[in-house]
């Protein structure tokens, strides 16, 4: 179970990487992709100024057996989406922390980063789920 230490996490199994310049990159964790199985479809939000609230579902991922909403880990606007992903959704299974990234968001409330789980806390949380 891969849980990179330089990322932050949510209980809904999203990871967040804080980039320079006030943006964050978001994806789903190794645990999430394992639970889902082969991912065959992903719907990403549109780039734009619409404000998305923390915990709001803003994308969804579909595997053969299940559909899973992705929830915004922070409040913000969508600056960029991974255009390659809809053509090769399996990247989310193969490289959940690399080529499988979903969106880049511009952060509105910096304090929301503090509410995210550290790698250590996320690992503990996942171990409890097993």
């Amino acid at each position, binding site marked *: 179970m891969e849980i990179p230490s330089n990322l932050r996490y949510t209980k809904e199994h999203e990871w967040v990487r804080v980039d320079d310049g006030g943006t964050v990159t978001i994806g789903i964790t190794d645990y999430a992709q394992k639970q889902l*199985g082969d991912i*065959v*479809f992903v*719907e990403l939000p549109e780039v734009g100024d619409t404000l998305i609230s923390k915990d709001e579902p803003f994308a*969804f991922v*579909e*595997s*053969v*057996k299940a559909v899973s909403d992705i929830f915004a880990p922070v409040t913000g606007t969508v600056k960029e989406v991974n255009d390659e992903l809809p053509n090769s959704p399996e990247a989310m299974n193969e490289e959940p922390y690399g080529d499988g990234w979903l969106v880049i968001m511009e952060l509105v409330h910096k304090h929301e980063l503090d509410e995210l789980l550290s790698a250590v806390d996320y690992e503990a949380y996942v171990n409890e789920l097993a």
Partner: protein
Amino acid sequence: MNKTPLHACHVAAGARMVEFAGWDMPVQYSGVVDEHRAVRENVGLFDVSHMGEVELTGAGAESVCCRLFANDAAKLAPGKAQYSLIPNDEGGVVDDIIVYRLAEERFLVCVNASNAAKDFEWIRDRSADECTVVDRSNEFALIAVQGPKAENLLGRLVPAATDLARFSCAEVMVSGHEAIIARTGYTGEDGFELFVEAARASQVWNELLEHGDPLGVRPIGLGARDTLRLEAALPLYGHELDDSISPFEVGLDWVVKLNRPQMTGYEALARAKKSPSRALIGLLVDKGIAREGCSVLASGIRIGVVTSGTHSPTLGRAVAIALVDRGAVTDDLAVDVRGKARPAKATDLPFYVRGGSTG
């Protein structure tokens, strides 16, 4: 939950286990798409021991089969098998089955796991003591060997497999023990189903894995079992069939041979044959998977429902089977997927035919 005789093999192989019809079953091992491809290209093994087996024996067995099952069991020579249905009095379906005629007076009926108890009671209660009816589900383990290399693999353990014609069956010896082999399956590929004694199951399973290694054999879970049968548009009870759906609405006209007035539901079936009100269609959806229960819309008006839907690894897109009002299909079709109307295109079934793909 019930466990099949092969349960420990699946757990040892690291399979993800799920509950299905009261059984703890493997849904996937290496992944649904990987397993699906293994069956289409090489050969896969399925543990389907959760399915039920009912045996009818005696001089009256054929007559009982002719009364209780929709296909014509009298046409079955010993050593042949046929797909069939158990109709109810209203012309709906109790279960879909395969009937294997092992001998003149011996029929083995393979039934769905979810209906095993119901089917046994139905057959026993309606046999009117004309033949012996025995539930042999617990005696058998059932291993399906499916794919273009299935004959190659099974032939290494059972030489008789290479000469067995499609929809034929035979009693054979497998590694020194009695078994029944049939050239039937639920994947749209060539393949066999092997009924072995429960105590022999893991030995046979492991031998097949070993002999099949150079052929690319894989164990296959219920996830890929569903994507395979769906591509081939094979019905699944509870989806395309249930007690209120007529076989004539789901393309199973060919199974219902109305040459025996004593057949259960004969009058209702004869009426439905004249004017079935619904039909099964295939749907191709671009965005997201249209799953069972989604409404199908023609020009915004609901005309039916998706009975089964999934991602098709062979076509590389989402496919669905839907039951819709006959004559209601227009050029402007959509499926309601979680509140959004997704455009869909109607297509002929099946989505996949062995040796090539359609759709």
